[in-house]
Every structure is written in C-alpha cells, then in structure tokens.
C-alpha cells in the first residue's frame, strides 16, 4: 500500500488521541487535569462512536491511573494514559514502578507549571522532575511530532521494555490547531504490529512473581539491566526514527535535530515547542548575517550524549534555553549538557537562558536579543554570567 497521508487540522491533544487510536491501544486509564483533558475526552468519544475497542478506566486519581496502567501492561495489553503537572507529580512513585517492572506504557505529558502559585501554562519542570524514574522522554516541537512521537514511542518502548513519555506544551500545542499528516491504519499496523510482551500475568504455564523483594545481592543487577535497556534504546530510537522516515517521509533518526550547524559560531539548544520559535528566529538571523544554528533535543532520556558531543565539537558556543529550573542549581538541560561534554574534547562556551516559565511568551524578538548577548560571549571568549533569568521584570 502506497503511503498517502490523511491530513487533519487538529490540536496537539487530538493528535495524541488519534495516535493512541491508530496505535490500537487496548487499555486507557486516566484522570482529568487541565490541559490534558481533551486527549482523554477524544478517546472517550472514539469509544462512544464505536471507532475504538478500548477498555477505558476512569480512575479516581493520577496515582491510580498509573497503577491501573501498570496492572494492564503487566497483563500484556498496550496501555496509554496522559497527564500534566500535579498529576504527573502524584504519579511519581508509580513511574518508578512502571520502569522497574519493565512495562512499555506510553504516556503523554502536557507540560504545565507546578504550583504554587497555580498555573496551567507551559513549563518543563513537571516532566524533567521525573528524569530519574527510568522513563524515556520525547519532546515534541509541534502537533505532528506529538502524533509521530506516540507511534514511535510504542515501537521503541515495546522493543526495549521501558516506558516512554511523549511531552507536548500546554496550550501552545495542546490547544492549538494545526495540520497533522496522519497515517492510514493499515500502514500504522505494518509499522507497529501487536505487542509481544516480555511477560504476561495472563500466562499460567509457568507461574511468575513480578517485583519480589531483591536483596542487596540481586537489586544492583536489576538496575544495571534497566540502565542497559536505556543504552539499547538509543540504538532502537535511531533505527525506529529512520524506519519512520523511510515509510512516512519524516525522519527521526537523529535524537537531536540540528540546523545550520556546519558554519555556525553558536547554536541555540532547547526542547519542545520553544524550538519552533527558535527555528523561525534562526532563519531571520541568518538573513541578517548571524552565524547561528539550532540543536533541538528530541529525546531527553535516554540522553543523546554522543550526538551532543559531535555538535559541540563544531561550534564555539551553545546558548541553552531552559523552560524549567532546578532550584539551587540552573536550567536542567544546561546541567545535563555540560555534564555530557565534560569528559569530551569539546568545550564550547555555554550560557544558560531561563525562559518562558509558567507560560511566559518566548518570541522571535526574545531569541534575537539572546543571539546578540551570546554573540558578545563568543567575541569575548568568556561566559560573563552562566545563568540568566532572561524575562525578569526590573
């Protein structure tokens, strides 16, 4: 069957719901939270219209949403959920559980700022706070990447038996409509065949006990295996991303998407919808003669260390844009990327710009202003100040 995309104008949340539908998820357990709700509403609508055969569990909390997904996934079903901010934080304990039990659950997190003060707007601190739970994390730049990300996440997750989070921005993507090229069901099925679980609680040939107490003599190796699975995932992500490109024309073989880096003095690095604005700004800056490029981190976990080293070797500086913050330190991507480069031969000048927290708008004008600041860093050969709270009212 020749690939002819079905173009639909949908929100990021509907793109996520359609991806779950096309991935033929069997169990969905979810709890409402703004701005995630329309994902689950859309899935409920698919069920109500007879378009999907899904067991839908309207649980009483996010903690139970993840716990129910864990039960369903351990039984062998392809399982989906979605949440945001407080809901994700409430799930935290069970995120560790899902990864430790090696369950390939896929979850969409709609990035939303953590309270207090209350905020429903875009901010990456919710998902990045889950960094060490053992989940993979994919950051979508636009609605198309939300759709593609969910489909690829299932394939990667079910290959390495590690859960995956697909992250999109509150409102900027979740509630903004855009054209998304969807894939005919038959071709999705070819790309993503039914799940073959590592183990199933429904198989009674050999009784199993999952998650039993492991003494200090054994626990260590369980952790090592999960660490190895993340290493393996880097390879699988590239293969799956390449296959996706060959089948559907959008290549995801790079864990970091780059632009204009060949002759760039410095690059902007960041994740998520923010990078759409950066790309626009870089196009304009190039026209004005700036030697600037961009590096969009698609996968934050596993972290694409090797790709980052390669990029860093070819530039004089990196301006890391963090729509998140780790209190007592700096932007989280900044810390991660500096750490990744420490033992490499690449030592670009690195400066951290804290932008857009709690949904503060990040415009092309802002990116241009940051470019001017970063240009001075490159010219002087010195990082004047490592971390800048760019938008701060004075």
């Amino acid at each position, binding site marked *: 069957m020749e690939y002819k995309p079905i173009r639909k104008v949908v929100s990021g949340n509907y793109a996520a719901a359609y991806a779950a539908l096309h991935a033929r998820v*069997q*169990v969905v*357990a979810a709890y409402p939270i703004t701005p995630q709700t329309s994902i689950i509403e859309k899935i409920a609508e698919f069920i109500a219209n007879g378009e999907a*055969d*899904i*067991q839908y*569990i*309207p*649980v*009483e*909390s996010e*903690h*139970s*949403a993840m*716990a*129910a*997904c*864990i*039960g*369903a*996934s*351990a*039984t*062998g*079903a392809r*399982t989906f959920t979605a949440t945001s901010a407080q809901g994700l934080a409430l799930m935290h*304990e*069970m995120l560790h*559980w899902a990864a430790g039990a090696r369950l390939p659950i896929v979850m969409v997190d709609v990035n939303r700022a953590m309270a207090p003060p209350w905020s429903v707007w875009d901010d990456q601190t919710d998902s990045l706070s889950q960094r060490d739970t053992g989940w993979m994390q994919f950051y979508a730049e636009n609605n198309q990447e939300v759709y593609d990300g969910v489909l690829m996440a299932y394939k990667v997750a079910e290959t390495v038996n590690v859960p995956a989070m697909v992250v999109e921005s509150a409102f900027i993507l979740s509630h903004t409509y855009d054209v998304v090229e969807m894939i005919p069901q038959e071709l999705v099925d070819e790309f993503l065949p039914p799940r073959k679980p590592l183990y199933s*609680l*429904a*198989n*009674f040939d050999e*009784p*199993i*006990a*999952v*998650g*039993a*107490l*492991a*003494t200090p003599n*054994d626990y260590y190796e369980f952790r090592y295996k999960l660490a190895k699975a993340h290493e393996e995932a880097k390879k699988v992500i590239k293969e799956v991303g390449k296959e996706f490109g060959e089948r559907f024309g959008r290549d995801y073989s790079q864990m970091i998407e780059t632009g204009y880096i060949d002759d760039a003095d410095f690059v902007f690095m960041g994740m998520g919808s923010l990078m759409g604005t950066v790309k626009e700004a870089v196009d304009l800056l190039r026209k004005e003669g700036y030697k600037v490029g961009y590096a969009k981190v698609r996968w934050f976990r596993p972290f694409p260390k090797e790709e980052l080293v390669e990029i860093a070797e070819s530039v004089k500086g990196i301006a890391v844009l963090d729509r998140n913050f780790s209190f007592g330190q700096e932007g989280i991507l900044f810390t991660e990327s500096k750490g990744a480069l420490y033992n490499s031969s690449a030592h670009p000048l690195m400066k951290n710009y804290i932008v857009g927290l709690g949904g503060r708008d990040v415009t092309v004008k802002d990116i241009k202003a940051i470019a001017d600041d970063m240009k001075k860093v490159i010219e002087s050969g010195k990082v004047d100040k490592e971390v800048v709270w760019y938008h701060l009212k004075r």
Partner: protein
Amino acid sequence: MEVPENIKKRVTIPFEEHFYAGHTACQGCGASLGLRYVLKAYGKKTILVIPACCSTIIAGPWPYSAIDANLFHTAFETTGAVISGIEAALKAMGYKVKGEDGIMVVGWAGDGGTADIGLQALSGFLERGHDAVYIMYDNEAYMNTGIQRSSSTPYGAWTTNTPGGRRHFLEKRHKKKVIDIVIAHRIPYAATASIAYPEDFIRKLKKAQKISGPSFIQLFAPCPTGWRAPTDKSIEIARLAVQTAYFPLFEYENGKYKINMPNPKKEPKPIEEFLKLQGRFKYMTKEDIETLQKWVLEEWERLKKLAEVFG
C-alpha cells in the same frame, strides 16, 4: 497423601495446594493460613496482587516464590487500582474473568494497605464495578514495619507507636469499620471471615468468585508476633474474636445482610476472654475494658438490627 473417599465427600476445603512450604511467615501467622485458603479456593488460574505488607515477604524473595499462581507485587496504596487494570486488560485481550472457569484477579492486602493508605484506590475499584475480589487480611496493625497502629487497631491495644507506658498512651480510637465503607458502595458482595472458620471462608470465597462485579472480604487474621500471643493460639484467638462478637461473621449480598455466627442463639462471651490471651491488651485498665466491651455490644446490636431490617 491418599484421602479416603468418605472423608473427601465431607470436606468442603479443597485438597489442592498452591501455597507451598518454604514461605517465610512467622510461626502461627494467620495471614499465611488465609492466603493458603484463597489459593485452595481459586487454584492456579489466579492473578494475585500484593501491595507492601507481610505477604510481600512471606511470598519469598527473588528468585523464589512460595505461590503457585501469578503474583504481581505493587506499591502500598495501589491494590484496588492494579486489580482494576489487570481486569480491564484481561477483558481487552478476550479472556474470561471471574466465574467458574474464568481467571481470578485477587487483591490481597493488609489492614493498613486497605483501610488507610489504600482506601482511595479501594473505593475507586468498588465504585467502578470491576470483576475482581479484594481480600483485606486484618491483623489490626502495620505488622511488616514492626507493629504500628492502623485505623483497624482496636481500642486499648499496645503497638510500638501506642506503647502504653506511664502516661497510658494506648490506642484510644475504636477499630474502623472499613466494611461499612465498602458496603456504602453498594457492591454485590461483601463479607467478613475468619481463619478460625475456614469452611465459612472458603464458601465466601466461592461465592465471591461466582458473583459478577467487585467482591470484598475482610479476613480476621491473628498475628502472634504483633499481638504478643503464643504462636499456638492463633486459631483460638480468632475463634474468640467471633464468639465475643468482637469480629462477627456476616455477609452483605445484593443489599441484604446475613449474620453467619456459628451459634446464632448464643449470647456473646465477655470480651476479656478474647483479650486475656494477648499481651497487647495487658496495659488496659478495668475502665478501658468496659469501654471496649460497651463498643463491641453496641456494634453487635447494630449489626443484628441491620440483618433484621435488611435481611
């Protein structure tokens, strides 16, 4: 062992074993007896979900397992949610769940994991009507962490965080009637049971299996370690809990209450008979005992009235 046919006919407890020797329970553990009966009743085609509790340890550390069924260990507060997810997945994958030949999904959680930290997930499970059985084995405190009070600990009991002492710092709240909360969900079947009455327990497990929708059983399971009681007295203590009406046996089935006391006509024995075998009650004053006795009889009257009105 060969069992004579005439005996086989009379015994209602299945002879098959799916809970093996080599488990790590303490001597005289009521919970492990209960688990043995559950697996006898439901057999191998059971998916057992165990949250943090004594049974996490009893089942055996990796790579050992004393349980001849599929076992999923989960976090403390999640039993109700995990059994919901398993049931949904089984249905999505086309398996028959519950009933005579269906797969049994069983939550096996302690009183802390049910009446305290797991109450929300339990409520969600009950309210949504999943086809699974939730069994709370009630040993009346957090035993696995070393005997701390739960909301299911009775008035006057010593625990390590209600240690008696000079200021008489004992448990001052009555045992939470968690089954009343369960019944408030108007589920098809809820019951109390005791390890001292295994035939009654097996009958209730079988009934829970047949009835479609969620079932709940609260199983009284003495803990000699935590109750400071001799290890050969677990059955006797459990029997006295019923005979004193401290822990009456009853069923709630489709809106109707039915009391299942061994001697329905008999007046309850004095509560002291239940208390005196256990070191955990030794700090109680005469007034404390009176307070507990009064509560036991009030609750017993209440239950009898419910059975009268909704019998």
